[in-house]
């Protein structure tokens, strides 16, 4: 199903992006802050700072340090957190489940809402109910995710006191973060499913199916919806990749202990090894999510499969 040359090309691109990300990150971080000052802590004498600089090798030239860092990364050694001395990669892997959990729940709920709603909207352009739903969606698209999160906390946690506002405990703490994420991802997906359903209904293959005597239900389930879903897979993949890197603000608002929150904390604390490990994990997870998206597309769409075969 997957040609080996395509997979090799994908892996080569992945390796390049990973190396580029770690390189850019190294120089950006080193140019903005001095790790020796962070390790020494406040109130350290210049002599102590100098000693730390020599001990960690920060006194050597930036290029030499870059080479050493990359060599260590190659061996899987991400170093230790500058703030608490625990292994940097371990810290990231410990917060990864919280992010994956949030992403998985948001993705499932998003699909459960968007696919039927989008298909329903796409079947007709008229009707009061459909027009009302479209109006609501237009307004919802104007709400940034973190504003929704703040307003939800305002209403349900501070005002009505129904739900806890922050933290990561039982199901009650999941509700608000998941709703915040879904309510700004769903309108986009609904719109795409709607447009694709509408386009598929006007396509030649639907006319052919109807002329051979297929019932409206058969047309919808066998011909229209599969095509509408196909077009939505790319967006679902992009939304998944976004959730793995982009939930920085939402996780911060809800004090959700995922990698986005860890990224904010470690960046603001100049905890370089942890930032490096977070970015590494994010690049890997975006690559994996893109690969899965492409695999799903190929699985669902015979045209992509045959194009891939022709190209190899």
């Amino acid at each position: 199903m997957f040609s080996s040359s395509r997979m090799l090309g994908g892996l080569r691109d992945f390796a390049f992006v990973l190396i580029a990300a770690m390189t850019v990150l190294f120089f950006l971080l080193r140019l903005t802050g001095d790790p020796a000052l962070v390790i020494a802590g406040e109130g350290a004498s210049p002599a102590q700072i100098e000693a730390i600089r020599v001990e960690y090798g920060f006194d050597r030239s930036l290029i030499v340090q870059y080479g050493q860092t990359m060599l260590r990364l190659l061996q899987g050694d991400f170093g230790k957190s500058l703030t608490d001395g625990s292994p940097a990669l371990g810290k990231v892997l410990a917060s990864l489940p919280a992010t994956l959990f949030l992403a998985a729940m948001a993705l499932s709920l998003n699909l459960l809402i968007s696919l039927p709603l989008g298909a329903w909207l796409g079947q007709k352009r008229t009707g009061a109910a459909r027009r009302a739903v479209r109006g609501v969606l237009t307004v919802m698209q104007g709400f940034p995710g973190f504003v929704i999160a703040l307003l939800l906390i305002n209403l349900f946690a501070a005002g009505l006191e129904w739900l806890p506002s922050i933290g990561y405990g039982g199901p009650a703490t999941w509700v608000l973060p998941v709703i915040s994420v879904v309510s700004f991802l769903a309108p986009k997906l609904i719109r795409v499913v709607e447009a694709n359903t509408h386009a598929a209904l006007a396509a030649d293959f639907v006319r052919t199916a109807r002329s051979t005597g297929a019932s409206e239900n058969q047309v919808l389930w066998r011909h229209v919806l599969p095509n509408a879903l196909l077009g939505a897979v790319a967006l679902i993949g992009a939304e998944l990749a976004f959730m793995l890197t982009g939930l920085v603000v939402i996780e911060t608002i809800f004090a959700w202990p995922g990698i986005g929150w860890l990224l904010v904390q470690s960046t603001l604390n100049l905890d370089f090894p942890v930032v490096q490990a977070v970015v590494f994990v994010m690049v890997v997870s975006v690559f994996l999510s893109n690969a899965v998206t492409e695999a799903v597309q190929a699985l669902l769409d015979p045209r992509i499969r045959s194009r891939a075969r022709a190209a190899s």
Partner: protein
Amino acid sequence: MSRSLSPAIVGAGVVGLFCLAVMIFGDTLSGHDHRAIDLSMRLAAPLAPGHLLGTDELGRDVLARLLNGMRWSVGSALCATLIAFCIGTTFGLAAAHKGAWLGGALKLLTTFTQSFPSFVMAVTVIALLGDSGFWAVTLTLGLVTWPVFSRVVYAEASSLFQREYVQAAEMTGMSVARLYAHHVLPALVPTLSVLVVFHFAEMIVAESALSFLGIGAPLGAATWGAMLSEGRAFMLQAPWLTLGPAFAMVIIIVAAHSVGQHLRNLTR
């Protein structure tokens, strides 16, 4: 699609004119200085005498602060969009016109920006530029987001350069400048105008998210993100402190979206 103006586009026009007035006059429109502290009027509710949208915990006028934040956010988003547009369009056109390897580089770059967290990029670039001011944020936003434009321009222009009339123009020896001015750029205008408007809305969100996290705007500045962040402490006592900037942002974004939608319908 009828040619008559929809209510949405009229509303967007009103919002646009209001934006323009705020860009010129700033917080003077509210009759208050956004920095003026009045401890006798702390946390006054909206519609209090002299304070249409109430005051914050230091008695500063919320409307004046909102208008000041609008100047900052809209100005920053406009300039960031312009920067992203210029870099992205140039790169996308160059890749589509001349080059196998530029196209490959563009694909890699897109993957790179998709997986490299923009938060880290923003924090470090702002720190590198040395001050947390208007241009540090604006430049960062523009420099981080331009691949959005290059990707779309590359896709559109690539198919354009395959068209017979463009190839014919190239073969008859039309100068590059004339080729672009007469055949390439006009064909890109519909897509680009829609993209610019939607990107502007994204930039409003991105700028506010940064200043919400305390990055970008100087400490204590009245920006929408900072107001949202400060208002969190008073959510129960004074919900207008968070509702004000939240709805200001939503109004601008919905207005931008309806302009974008209108442009899209016009060109279809």
